């Protein structure tokens, strides 16, 4: 499952889910897609084994929001789709 799919599945309720976000946990397994995007995702701090929370989505079907450690990251759908995850 990609990060984008994971997000779709778990945060339909938009940012309201932020409060309950602890339940939407995932673990990064790997990457696939355009090499440039993958490299930048790694530089932004994503790496296999990393656990992250889905926070919600910006209005109009905009970027998806994730949190890991002290970082909140906004990714467009196609960017999130480059990250493969396993649901915890």
């Amino acid at each position, binding site marked *: 499952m990609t990060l984008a799919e994971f997000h779709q599945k778990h945060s339909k309720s*938009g*940012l*309201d889910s*932020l*409060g309950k976000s602890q339940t939407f946990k995932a673990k990064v397994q790997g990457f696939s897609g*355009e090499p*440039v*995007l993958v*490299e*930048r*995702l*790694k*530089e*932004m*701090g994503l*790496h*296999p084994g990393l656990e992250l929370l889905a*926070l*919600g989505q*910006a*209005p*109009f*079907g*905009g*970027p998806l*929001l994730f*949190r890991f*450690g*002290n*970082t*909140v*990251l*906004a*990714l*467009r759908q196609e*960017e999130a789709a480059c990250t493969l995850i396993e649901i915890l």
Partner: protein
Amino acid sequence: MHLDRNSVDHFVALIGAPNSGKTTLYNWLTNSRFKTVNYPGATIEYSLGRLADRYKSESKGQDFPVMDTPGTYSLFAKSADELVTLNAIYNHPLMGPAGKIILVVDGTQLNRHLLMARQLKEAGFSFVMAVTMSDLLRKNQIELDLTVLEKEFGTRAIAIDGLLGGGIQELVKAVAELPWSPPPKALTPWNEKISTEVLQRIEWLSQETSRQARAAGKNLSAVYEKTARLDRFLLHPVFGLVFFFLIMWGLFSSIYWGAAPAMDWVDGIFASGIEWATESNPGLFGDFLGNGVIASFGAVFIFVPQIFILFVGIGLLESSGYLARAATLIDKPFSKVGLSGRSFVPLLSGFACAVPAVMATRNISSSRDRWITNFVIPLMSCSARLPVYSLLLGFLFIGEPAWKAGFGLAVLYIIAALVGATAAAILNKILVKTETSFFMMELPIYRRPQLRVILRQAFVRTKAYVRRAGPPILIFAVLIWMGTTFPNYQAEGPERLQSSYMAQMGQGIEPLFQPMGVDWRVGVGLISAFAAREVFVSSMAVMFNITDESQQEEGLLETMKTATNSEGALIFTPATVVGLLIFFMIALQCMSTVAIQMKENKSKHFALIQLVVFNVVAYGLAVALVQGLRALGVA
């Protein structure tokens, strides 16, 4: 400060990720004395300053230029813009390679920011690490074990307090003791195996560094909880958008209305300057000095309040952490036309004035997005169009309730925005995509902005505007003065303009204006509007012999009702006035915009293409509309 290679052997460069606290550190190091320069041949902007005198004892008297670079995540460039940043430290065309590097890492984001330390080491740069946010960490009783980092990278790592300047002296000392580095090696891209190893090592390092902090870690997460709570509101699909529009309305109001008193003040100063010059030197010289030279300087400085206020506003939004949220909130609609949420602030500013708006595009990180945004900015209905709209709408709805003209104005603004969106979509289709564009943005914690740093940045950028855009605006303004003054410069009153080169030119190209349904006098108004759009109203008054200045608009409206062309037909009819409105909406008739585009894009071609395209399209549409309306029976 000289920039040629001979006078500068070595310089110290600051690099670091966006939001790492780089700019704040830079302000400390240079005591806020720096200027912004462009990378030769590119629109990438970086700051260049010298080490502040107060640190001279720590630097053992050494004096060196310090460069601040745009935030970057990696030494592997992902875009043309990032490549320029890297070139600036690898081998700057004027200054050579950076001799020493200060890597700025956020102490709360070690797991992400240490990647660049690894890359710098591999490339053979001589560097020290400045670990920022130590004020935040200390406030929450978290102590980082920086010796872990020092051992790993074989260099000093120093905690910096951006708020009070703690650690800066130690940092300068460490920089001074650092040897100047040999020419750096280009990095060979990491394969999957290496990159995984590096990422794991960095994760381990950041945990080791903050290990002792574990017990207190709960405190720091309170800071992030606060940000998360705010985000729950500020990124909310409904409240978030409401707040977004309130903030943007505030920013827009401050450049639209907030700047007005200061602009009136600037205007007043130059007006009395012109009066003094023309009265104390009667004749052509006084006229040249006043209406030529002093008025031209006025044309440059009139934009200073707006530019300064806009950059203070952007600085506040950026350093508080809100700008990243704003870009995220509005990203989707903009991505439909190939732009990103980062284009919002510049485009919004365009509704006040294109000149500061073009300067605000510097905050857009992708050069393609910046190009498209710059191109469509002049389509946003700027404030200089208002007097023209007011005159023309006043004519269309003469003697009718005021709300009709108000409604017409709203429609004009909406059409302008739609035309801008269409233009951006077209450009997005025809421009070749040379690189993958990405949005990927980290949302930093909310922090109290440091006003001193923001004011300084705004000041430096405003100064850069005067220096760069000033000269071309001056030249254009003097040319327009000459065109409207000669050859009949001794004539008094309206006669001078009516018999000027500009008027002759208007008469010469009258056939061009006929399809728009207007005569050469309106043509002269259109040409003279190139000085500034609102000049259209006053030149129309001159061309149509309205002498009572206090009743200019009313008098003009009366005259327009009955004005006829050489064949006795009415010039101003609903059809021609609508044509003029459309023309003003699209045409690029503003020398200051052309000048700033020339300077900001480092390209005369860009400004020239924009000038031709916008005016040809505006003309074509206006003609089509006038002829179409007439064919439909609208006079």
